[in-house]
């Protein structure tokens, strides 16, 4: 008995000590920021993933961008009609075919008081290129040779070849980091920038003050932010909180735990939340599209008539009405989407859903239907199971193709497998989404040139290639639009890409906050720096 008593006491003591020892420790009041300025309110925002990297030139995670965008500026922003607009850069363009430039504002300072100059811009570009920092930014620098600060406010970029898109693309996708902080750290690709060495130095409406991985990321207001009306951001603090998925975020918004959901709402939730007391739903145009791509490396799909048959075997309107709940717009089966207003071509119209026409095209391609009306071919369509919208419409694509006697086998997999299959060309039909297609020439080069990173149809059409290459070196905007429209007609006629729709995006927030400025895409939405700096509590 004595032994068991001691054992029980020992076990209890060990557990107590264990619990006390492993318990996380409470923060000290000084560790987080206080609230000063026009509003003492904290705005809490839900996200579904942690920050992967605090270094804004690395990676491409959405949460990383939402948070680092509040601390590190982009040269350009984007308007609702898809045109690039001034942000840190006030003017931009080309000196000649292989030299581009940015003129930047002269009234910006980093949070440690150092001025933000053209030298910071040039150094960032050269360092990302030199150190091959993996991420979307580096991907834009293919034709950059070197960047030079020719004055405090002017940067000139020498290009390895003429490229009429690179200045706007770098301006939109790239960020500027403080040279005096990043340079001493060595390779920009290996700098964690996690605040462990004296905190963060940035230029934005907010600056990181405290974080707990997996729990919250807290940014405090920067009192001097010239890019917002009045020069002082509205909320005293921005806190990003991490939730497992958008459904839990909705619960948290309804319970008052957060004020904004950063992620776009699933289509099925939009109407319900629009009618919920205490909430507001804000719309932003989409900059991307959902599409089906037919792999031309497969002999059946190399036949134009088969791709056309498949294009006419999809009920696009039903997909937009049923799955997208009417929240998507037709692009006219065109890669030049309506949101890119200058480029949009109304003469290109959507493929008509017509199973009989599909049958005729299949017969024209040399196939004969059996007694049951089915053609002796079958196509494997891949999609990501994590993409709930595509998962739903993939089934509709299969069903409507069956009406035309064409068999489609669905293969939904987890995202990493799907990406792997995509990069290996292991599919007949690819179903997926691109979030942001902001520049037509860049999009066409990536999608339809041989070796293009997202040339999932594996097309190599000499006429199309020539037009895209001409577009890349045409600096006159009207000429460029005309060339890209010609290229788009070829893509449409040959069904090198089947663009299904552009999805409008909806974001939910508490109606206790106002002043949000929505921008196109989920990446910018209502959590872009200007929007959060302009947000203020409703009186």
């Amino acid at each position, binding site marked *: 008995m004595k032994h068991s008593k001691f054992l029980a006491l020992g076990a209890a003591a060990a557990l107590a000590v264990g*619990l006390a020892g492993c318990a*996380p420790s409470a923060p000290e009041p000084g560790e987080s920021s206080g609230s000063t300025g026009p509003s003492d309110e904290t705005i809490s925002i839900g996200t579904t993933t942690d920050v*992967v990297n605090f270094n804004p030139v690395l990676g*491409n995670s959405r949460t990383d961008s939402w948070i680092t965008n509040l601390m590190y500026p982009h040269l350009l922003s984007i308007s609702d009609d898809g045109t690039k607009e001034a942000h840190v850069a006030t003017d931009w363009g080309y000196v000649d075919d292989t030299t581009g430039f940015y003129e930047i504002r002269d009234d910006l300072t980093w949070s440690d008081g150092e001025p933000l100059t053209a030298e910071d811009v040039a150094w960032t570009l050269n360092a990302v290129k030199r150190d091959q920092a*993996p991420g979307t930014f580096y991907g834009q620098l293919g034709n950059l040779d070197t960047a030079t600060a020719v004055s405090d406010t002017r940067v000139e970029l020498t290009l390895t070849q003429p490229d009429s898109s690179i200045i706007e693309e770098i301006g939109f996708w790239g960020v500027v980091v403080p040279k005096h902080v990043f340079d001493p750290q060595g390779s920009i690709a290996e700098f964690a920038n996690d605040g462990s060495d004296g905190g963060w130095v940035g230029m934005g409406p907010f600056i990181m003050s405290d974080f707990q991985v*997996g729990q919250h990321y807290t940014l405090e207001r920067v009192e001097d932010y010239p890019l917002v009306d009045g020069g002082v951001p509205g909320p005293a603090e921005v806190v990003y909180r991490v939730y497992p998925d958008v459904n839990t975020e909705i619960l948290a918004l309804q319970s008052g735990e957060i004020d904004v959901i950063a992620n776009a709402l699933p289509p099925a939730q939009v109407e319900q939340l629009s009618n919920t007391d205490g909430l507001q739903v804000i719309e932003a145009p989409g900059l991307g599209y959902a599409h089906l791509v037919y792999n031309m490396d497969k002999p059946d799909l190399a036949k134009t008539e088969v791709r056309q048959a498949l294009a006419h075997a999809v009920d696009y309107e039903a997909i937009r009405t049923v799955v997208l709940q009417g929240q998507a717009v037709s692009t006219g089966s065109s890669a030049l989407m309506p949101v890119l207003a200058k480029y949009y071509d109304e003469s290109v119209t959507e493929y008509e859903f017509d199973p009989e026409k599909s049958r005729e095209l299949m017969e024209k391609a040399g196939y004969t239907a059996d007694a049951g009306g089915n053609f002796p071919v079958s196509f494997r369509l891949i999609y990501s199971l994590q993409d709930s919208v595509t998962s739903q419409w993939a089934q509709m694509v299969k069903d409507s193709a069956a009406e035309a006697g064409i068999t489609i086998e669905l293969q939904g997999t987890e995202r*990493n497998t799907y*990406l792997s299959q*995509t990069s290996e060309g292991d599919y007949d039909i690819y179903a997926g989404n691109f979030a942001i297609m902001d520049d037509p020439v860049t999009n066409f080069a990536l999608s339809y040139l041989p070796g293009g990173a997202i040339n999932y149809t594996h097309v190599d059409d000499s006429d199309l290639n020539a037009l895209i290459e001409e577009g890349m070196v045409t600096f006159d905007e009207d000429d460029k639009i005309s060339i890209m429209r010609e290229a788009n007609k070829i893509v449409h006629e040959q069904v090198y890409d089947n663009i299904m729709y552009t999805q409008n995006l909806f974001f939910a927030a508490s109606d206790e906050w106002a002043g949000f400025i929505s921008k196109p895409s989920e990446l910018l939405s209502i959590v872009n720096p200007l929007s959060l700096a302009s947000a203020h509590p409703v009186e």
Partner: protein
Amino acid sequence: MSRASFILRRAGRGLLTIWFAVTVTFLLLRLLPGDPALALASPNMTDAIRATILEQYGLDQPLIVQYGLYMWQLLQGNLGISFTQSIPVLDVLLQRLPWTLLLTMTALVLTIIIGIPLGVAAASHKGRFIDRAVQIVGVTGQSLFVPSVAILLLFVFGLNLGWFPIGGAYTNNTYGLEWYLSVAQHLVLPAVSLMLIQVGSYVLTMRSTLIETLGEDYILLAKANGLRGRRILWKHALRNALLPTTTLIGLQLGFLVGGAVLTETVFAYPGIGRGIYEAVTQLDFPVLQGAFLMLAATVVVANTLTDIVYGYLDPRVKTS
């Protein structure tokens, strides 16, 4: 066998198990479909960028070379650098470990203090209403699925009643006592979820072993000697009946950790489980290897300690 050699043998077996777990984890991760380079950069990167990334992280090396380098680094106590976060894996894990320990240990304590008395109550009222009710609770508990329980609790107690927060581990801008209260409030739903799926095993194990023990000759002898039922139950029967439950604590630790991955994910609890979930989506091999090594070591150490405690409780084990 002396106590020292018994402990040494158990420790040696534990190290072998950890090496095996590390090797299997290393190989399994590389068999996963997907390309870590795709998680590091945009899917629309060029082949040249992809090759650069693979080279930077040593993923272009043959598998055996990667394994050799990994084991060499491991022997020096280096778990590597996270692919995605560019910081040491040990730092990544240490940021999250306290929360996982707090959650799992709280759930374990709750499970023990609820499960064992329930099992005792059922065994001592064998065949009666309490016994049947406890058995139903036990069997139901064993068949529960963590995410289902968690989401139900979240919906009822988080959203509808508003008693507990929807996610996270504490409320921002709270300090001192207020912070500890906030941590406790955030801990309730995840810990209860984890407890609910564990407690059934404890209840049923305790009940069956205690019933068996109560039928032993020495218990009958004690009864014949006129000892009171309560004294027989708590003084004579319980100690022996606790032996299988002690083993269960060690064995269940693995399930507890597995359950924590799901629980932390549903409740956005910032522990290692949630970290594993994110590392899987990003194919962050070093973080996954480090996390699984840590979990394997935890389970092995717990089992070894269980063996040792068991050997102490029942000396026959050391000679077997």
